[in-house]
């Protein structure tokens, strides 16, 4: 059993998202604000009806609804063109198998015949009168009336759902969200409880209960209670005594603390805690079909992360794993072909890429692509010397290095088109800076496919005599200026050019570090903007 698609409307950061998933491993990457965690949370919500490990009915708050949708609602009422209160809708489509056939139907937003579940958080018409009063004064409106909202959880067959009625079992593993030690304990204990077999948990509960009994039978406690009994009439007419809490809420979970090598879990290092939580959760969730995991890299050293990710890949075989990460290491280890580049609206997998580009990146270390995807803008250059000149030019223009402004400068060799294929799918803002190699028209023609892409900008200089970066720099700055900056005394441009090209990176570094201003060739300057 696996999920194949999630369609999300108005849930927190996700105004409207439509994401498709692969069988097996999916690695969700995206910007900090893209809503990766929200995506995982939404899927878990629709499949389990839970938020923060509690039934969603008890966890409703106004900020669950997308802020833009809320503003539209408020604005519409203020403008005198009122609209219905916004609603959250999460639809999860499942791959059709006999186990989930009962979830099949067309009761989804697209009216398509599919297996799936939908969770809607919407205004409850039972509160029409209250709502009328609520919107009576549009100027005072500042939120949605979440207290008049209800949760509707149904299959695509229109049947009301309970956690038991969804055959696909999901585990959300989000250790990073657990801030205080009490919650961490509770989390681990829940996992331990899930892990124990039925007889084991009965034995544990019995042992705990009889331990409480022994407490009361202890001679010292009996003595104390006898003493307290003598106080009858002082604090109450009834007999006062002490005993272990035997109410139902005092189950073993509240009195037992998990230990690692005899050290209470809460006192073990954060990284180890995290790793234990993830591994325990996976063991406990043996019967799960889908794991949703947030940023397993948190608090872990490189080696430990390596071990954890190998463990993950091993234990989740045959199941579906959706993991969000900021770590290129996690991505590389789990397989770059499983990457899902999520931008808050849709997700592009490398499956959508041209086949040759896909296999190219499967062989390539992943981090270059992640940089491209996560940057607000990228400038693609050929090599380190181009990169240094772009960096210098950028700092001269904007007063700070590109990275500080979210602009990545990435040296891609001659693989421009591979990166542009990704950029095109994600509509990333990308500028290409490339030598004309003495054939401006021929080089420009290489990029003719991308002319229609508004976010892709190609910068190749038209002067066939200035074939590469170095002649271009000489042309822009003159021999004297460069001699001065480089500490050389070449008497003609050809010699200077040969020198610079023979020592590409060194000369570029010297120019970059020089406090003197460098005139940036036009085609590079255009790319810097």
């Amino acid at each position, binding site marked *: 059993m696996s999920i194949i698609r999630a369609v999300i409307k108005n849930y927190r950061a996700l105004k409207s998202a439509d994401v498709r998933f692969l069988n097996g491993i999916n690695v969700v990457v995206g910007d900090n604000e893209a809503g990766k965690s929200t995506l995982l949370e939404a899927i878990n919500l629709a499949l389990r009806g839970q938020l923060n490990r509690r039934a969603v009915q008890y966890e409703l708050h106004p900020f669950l609804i997308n802020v833009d949708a809320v503003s539209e609602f408020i604005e519409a009422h203020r403008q005198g063109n009122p609209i219905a209160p916004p609603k959250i809708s999460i639809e999860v489509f499942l791959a*059709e198998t*006999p186990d989930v*056939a*009962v979830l*099949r*139907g*067309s*009761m989804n937003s697209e*009216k398509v*015949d599919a297996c799936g579940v939908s969770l809607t958080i919407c205004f409850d018409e039972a509160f029409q009168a209250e709502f009328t009063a609520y919107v009576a004064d549009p100027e005072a409106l500042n939120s949605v009336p979440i207290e008049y909202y209800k949760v509707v959880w*149904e299959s*695509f*067959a*229109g*049947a009301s759902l309970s956690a038991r009625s969804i055959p696909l079992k999901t585990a959300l593993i989000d250790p990073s969200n657990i801030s205080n030690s009490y919650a961490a304990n509770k989390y681990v204990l829940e996992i331990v409880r899930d892990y124990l077999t039925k007889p084991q948990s009965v034995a544990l509960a019995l042992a705990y209960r009889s331990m409480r009994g022994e407490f009361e039978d202890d001679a010292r406690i009996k003595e104390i209670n006898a003493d307290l009994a003598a106080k009858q009439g002082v604090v109450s007419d009834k007999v006062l005594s002490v005993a272990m809490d035997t109410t139902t809420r005092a189950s073993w979970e509240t009195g037992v603390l998990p230990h690692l090598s005899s050290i209470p879990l809460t006192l073990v290092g954060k990284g180890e805690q995290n790793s234990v939580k993830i591994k325990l959760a996976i063991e406990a969730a043996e019967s799960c079909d889908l794991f949703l995991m947030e940023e397993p890299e948190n608090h872990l050293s490189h080696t430990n992360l390596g071990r954890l990710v190998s463990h993950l890949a091993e234990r989740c075989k045959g199941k579906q794993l959706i993991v969000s990460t900021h770590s290129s290491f996690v991505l590389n280890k789990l397989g770059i072909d499983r990457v899902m580049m999520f931008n808050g609206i849709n997700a592009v997998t490398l499956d959508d890429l041209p086949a040759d580009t896909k296999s190219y990146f499967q062989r390539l270390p992943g981090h270059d692509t992640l940089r491209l995807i996560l940057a607000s803008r990228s400038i693609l250059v050929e090599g380190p010397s181009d990169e240094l000149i772009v960096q210098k030019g950028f700092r001269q223009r904007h007063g700070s290095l590109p990275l500080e402004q979210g602009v990545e400068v990435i040296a891609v060799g001659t693989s421009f088109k591979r990166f542009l294929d990704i950029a095109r799918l994600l509509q990333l803002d990308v500028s290409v800076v490339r030598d004309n190699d003495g054939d401006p028209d021929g080089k420009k023609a290489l990029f003719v496919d991308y002319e229609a892409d508004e976010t892709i900008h190609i910068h190749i200089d038209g002067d066939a005599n200035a074939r590469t970066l170095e002649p271009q720099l000489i042309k822009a700055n003159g021999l004297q200026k460069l001699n001065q900056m480089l500490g050389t005394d070449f008497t003609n441009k050809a010699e200077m050019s040969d020198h610079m090209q023979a020592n590409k990176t060194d000369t570029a570094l010297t120019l970059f570090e020089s406090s003197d201003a460098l005139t940036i060739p036009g085609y590079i300057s255009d790319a810097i903007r």
Partner: protein
Amino acid sequence: MTQSGNRVVLAAAGSGKTTAAVKLACENPEKRTALITYTLNGRNELEARAYREFGAIPPQVNISTWYTFVLAHFVRPYQNHLHERRVDTINFERAPASRRRFRKSQVARYYFSSAARIWSDRATDFACSLIDETGGLPVSRIQGIFDRVIVDEAQDLAGWDLELIEHLLKSAVEVVLMGDHRQATFSTNDNPKNRQFSGEKIIDKFAAWERHGLVQTAHQSHSHRCVQGICDFADQFFPDCEPTTSQNQAFTGHDGVYLIRQADVKRYVETFAPQTLQWSKTGGARVGSPLNFGDSKGMTFERVLIYPHAKFREFLGSGRMELGGQSKTKTYVAMTRARQSVAIVVPNNFTPKVGEVFEFDN
């Protein structure tokens, strides 16, 4: 043709039909089975039998009422092809005349009493419209969920129910219809569709399906419950049916069907302690805690005492069977409730053509 095993099982009263249905559903863990009956009482009875016989309702078995089944699998899953608002419930009231003039194309007003409530006698009509509208999606869906559908009390199916059953008969799902047209006492459905097959005449529909190769008919013509005397007497109501063979060999010294003079009723009740059954509350004082004929369906008593209605009494006097419709089927039900004896109350001066008047020995 009926390679899928579709069948109609015509079961005489007391033949253990309900138990057979439960066993059929529960015994094979490989076959995902929907076990369906018409009424809530019937469903409770099926559940109780499953617990009694198997200790639990096995996971492959889903027991529900007909309407729950229709709503869950034939109305809601694709309803938005005809009606957006989720259908929450069935409206079991009779649609008022003012609501009956709408055309089918006026979907919301034709089928629904309010946006979320569908008229009970139009629910299966709506289901069949959805099947047409979606090119059969609900049928293809149910094939993925159940291997077999067993309908207990199948004689209660009426109107568009029969069309929906026909869709199932033509699907890959195995359909087993268990029932007894002689006990067709239940009528919630006044949809004009298939009126010619209402009540006991549903047997004609079963026969038509058999002619078209959609089902095979099997008979369970034995009764575990009633002694032979009771079987023979009740069989007079349906002379065209196979005679019922009793498998009740118990002998109490007072077994079979008797007519009891009004004057002897008190003493008879003191002697034999029968359960009183009546056609309806009207018609004078009754002894004991009487049950109406229709309500006694599915029940078993050691002995019963029946207060007949006028037509029944006339039959006893003339020997001419002029009962029809529910007065016939409900009387058949009442007659077949007892294991050992049925006593029918007659006037003191009654001269019977059918049956013998019981005389106390002293």
